[in-house]
């Protein structure tokens, strides 16, 4: 990366840091500047449990090339076991590695700045799961029951609040953080609200069984995916009013994945046969009008085998859908705004779980 370009990018991130930390940990930038361009996409692969093979790949949009395994290439050590989430915030990447029990902080090239090892009191792992950021602080859920606040200058965990074992995704809305508590190890329906200033739990909402993913819209509604219950683990998407606790079911399908961009939820909803997702539907939900769009965002002639995650390029509106089987390295499929397949990019990791974008001005 050219130095001048990098500094410019850095400045851009610092100035617009607040908007980058919107509730949705999937989109990273809401920069309105018309000359904004996306430089690249980071794809995090969690690997296989027990194999220490989490991988961070970087797809350079300009060259169309993939820099494989940039964390290992720049640091000469591995990311570790079962990476779970990636956050681009300011000039840094934050990578939550669940089983290795680390939060790796790197620069935008993947060069390690600090490895945070959250304390685990009597548990096998604290289990860093999901990340978000707000107002100069990074927040990480720890599976052993906490939400932790990381200061972005000292890169230390400075506060922890107990939210419950099995905590999964976190998002921000109106100076509040919302976390979902999944049904592991014990059945749960909870969404918990944490006041950022006091850093205490201020509300518990009974949303839906086994909530695992959460997003928020501008009006403050929460969108929660339930991973269901035994035996079929059939998924549900619900909209929750955090003020009243009212819950409305939007969608029920075997398997649901979502991301948020501008006023839309992008959803992949699949049936399940033999415990594998089939017949994916690519739905767009307008959070403003509370309506599903009539057309799907992927054309019917495009086939993505085993879709895993989806994220939207904040500038171009392209949708990046990762796919893969547990046995082999995955791919990312880039879908244009008009639903066509632009490109399929081969990744070097197994189980690609999220794509994050880095933008610059030109």
């Amino acid at each position, binding site marked *: 990366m050219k130095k001048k370009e990098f500094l410019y990018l850095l400045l851009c991130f610092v100035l617009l840091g607040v908007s980058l930390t919107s509730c949705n940990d999937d989109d990273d930038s809401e920069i309105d500047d018309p000359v904004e361009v996306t430089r690249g996409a980071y794809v995090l692969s969690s690997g296989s*449990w027990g194999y220490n093979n989490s991988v961070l790949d970087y797809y350079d949009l300009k060259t169309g090339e993939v820099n494989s395994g940039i964390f290992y290439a720049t640091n000469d050590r591995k990311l570790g076991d079962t990476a779970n989430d990636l956050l681009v915030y300011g000039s840094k990447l934050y990578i939550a590695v669940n089983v290795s029990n680390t939060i790796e902080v790197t620069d935008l090239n993947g060069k390690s700045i600090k490895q945070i090892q959250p304390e685990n009191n009597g548990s096998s792992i604290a289990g860093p799961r999901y990340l978000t950021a707000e107002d100069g602080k990074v927040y990480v859920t720890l599976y052993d029951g906490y939400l932790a606040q990381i200061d972005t200058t000292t890169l230390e965990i400075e506060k922890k609040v107990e939210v419950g074992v099995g905590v999964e995704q976190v998002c921000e809305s109106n100076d509040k953080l919302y976390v979902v508590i999944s049904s592991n190890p014990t059945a749960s329906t909870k969404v918990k609200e944490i006041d950022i200033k006091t850093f205490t739990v201020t509300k518990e909402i009974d949303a839906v069984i086994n909530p695992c993913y959460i997003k928020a819209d501008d009006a403050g509604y929460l969108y929660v995916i339930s991973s269901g219950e035994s035996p079929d683990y059939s998924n549900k998407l619900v909209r929750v009013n955090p003020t009243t606790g009212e819950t409305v079911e939007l969608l029920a399908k075997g398997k649901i994945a979502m991301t948020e961009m501008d006023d839309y939820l992008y959803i992949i909803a699949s049936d399940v046969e033999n415990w594998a997702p089939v017949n994916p539907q690519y739905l767009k939900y307008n959070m403003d009008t509370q309506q599903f769009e009539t057309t799907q965002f992927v054309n019917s002639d495009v086939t993505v085998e085993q879709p895993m995650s989806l994220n939207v390029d904040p500038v171009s509106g392209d949708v990046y859908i990762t796919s893969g089987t547990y046995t082999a390295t995955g791919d990312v499929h880039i879908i244009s705004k008009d639903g066509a397949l632009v490109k399929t990019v081969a990744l070097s990791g197994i189980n690609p779980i999220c794509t994050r974008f880095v933008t610059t001005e030109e």
Partner: protein
Amino acid sequence: MRFLFWRGMLCLTTVLPVSYSFAQQKDTIRTRQLQEVEVVEQSRPAVNRASVPVQAISKEMIDRMGMQNLSEAVKRFSGVTVKDYGGIGGLKTVSIRSFGAQHTAVSYDGITISDAQSGQVDISRFSLDNVEEITLTIGQSDEIFQTARMYASVGVLAIKTNRPVFQDKPFHIRSKIGGGSFGLLTPSFQYDRKLTDHFSLTTRADWVSAKGEYPFTLINGQLVTKEKRKNSDVQSLRLESNLYGSLGGGEFNAKIYYYDSERGLPGSVTYYNDYAKERLWDNHFFSQAYYRKDWDVLSFQSSVRYNYSYSKYRNVDSMFPDGMQEDRNTQQEYYFSTGVHYRPLNGFSTSLTSDLSYTTLDNNFENKILPERLTSLTALAMQYQTSRLTLTGSLLATYMRDEVRSGDRPADKKRLSPALGVSWRPFSESSFRLRASFKDIFRVPTFTDLYYQRIGNTNLNPERALQYNLGLTWSGENSFFRYLSVSADVYYNKAEDKIVAVPTMYVWKMRNLGEVETIGLDFNLHLEKLLTSGMAVLFSSTYSYMKAVDVTDTGSKVYHHQIQYAPKHSGTTSVSLENPWVNLSYQVTAVGKRYSLPQNIKSNEITGYVEHNLSLNRSFPIGRANLRVQAELLNLTNKTYDIIRFYPMPGRSWRLSLVLIY
């Protein structure tokens, strides 16, 4: 990724405890076939005339090479892979020619050890102290008068213990004290007693204790650290008693066996996190009796057995509601086998054997499924044998029915499984033989595959295994060699409907998914040369080539890739020098690169290794007793290697033992 966490939980809770618990089963002890003595073939183990590959290691070789546990012996065979999770208490299973370990039967004094829960046998629990011979048969054995269970596998690893022979006095005492690196202590005591002219009794106790915390080097790119394998201690006690006798003109024996152990499970090495608090307790008890009677052209045999296995797994982790998770499993099995062997014509014989077993599993889970399994196996076999030709055919009929207290009941399993084998000596003046065999067999889904919490799938079909083998053998002696034997086999295998755990949306699930084709070559060479009187050199070497590729889906990224943990090249060599002073044995094991995951890419590669071991022994007569001193140096070059990825093997270590026999 939920499923990754769940898989973690699954591995913590299921796979390990399941793999450790096992049940026993009873089989016939031996068959007495009318085999003509061939002048050109020596009275060595009849491995050369078999129509399928048979390899044997005798007590003599075990002593000579200083092998102390079964996995060390099995690693000397060609065509097998020992999956070794490292350390004294680490799980060790045997995989034949790239088939899963559930396809390998392990028999102990003719008793097939079965485990309906995990389907595989951990061979780390066997001592070699009282072993007479270990035999590995790949495919269907030519010995047709066996229990039906011996027909129901891809191959059999048979462990045979020594039966006492009394000459000058009516008792024997054998006591041993052994020890070694990592706090290893292995005392044992055996007392054999002649009771009457017709009955004798042996009783033995073995204790294994090890601290187990061995050092290893963890290599993470440029980050190289010296670590210790935490939580790898083991304590185990084994008690065994055998009654031998003759009854009503027939042969009778009975066995009681008890095993009790506690061990730490160090788990796989995770970068940046060395938490390991899992523990496992095992109790196994079995009791069985066997009777056989022979008449002119007819033989009869029958065996009965009861097995009880209990395992307790505990993981301490504050994330669990009670601060820990505890799984307790109890498996019981009742087994009965009876068979006849009929020899109406010279050279022609036939056998019919029927086995019946009833297995139950109980545990402390919330939603108990409480499976009960009734299995009926019937084997019909025929054999034609002359001094130059052996022709064997068999048909196994399996019927299996499961009942469950709750949930879905799987469909009954019914199959017919044929096997054919031929061994031919084309030249009357030479021991050179050609052999060909075929077997179509399967393994039934285990209780874990079918019922384990969340991951079990009651719709599973059996996993099918097809085996074809072509080989040649030659053995003999000449003026230069006291003994020389060579065998080479090429084979083709196919596994269909493989039962594998597949991650789904939220949990892992067992499915029939995957086909594997294997082409391979196994080569064995054994020679002995007398140097001067009292001095001899013995040399053995094996080599295996195995190309085992995934052929499930032509469009997948792993199509035609070598399957996990199957080395393309592997081999062993051992040289022993016998002399009047100190017997010396040197062994080398070499294994080529393997892949830890299905895709053959660099990041999944496990580098090959060469391990060197050295053993020294000497016997001293002390009055009427005999003292044997044995010392071994293992992994001489202190090589850092994994067999299973992230389960590091110990570096250089030593063992010493003193055995007093009276």
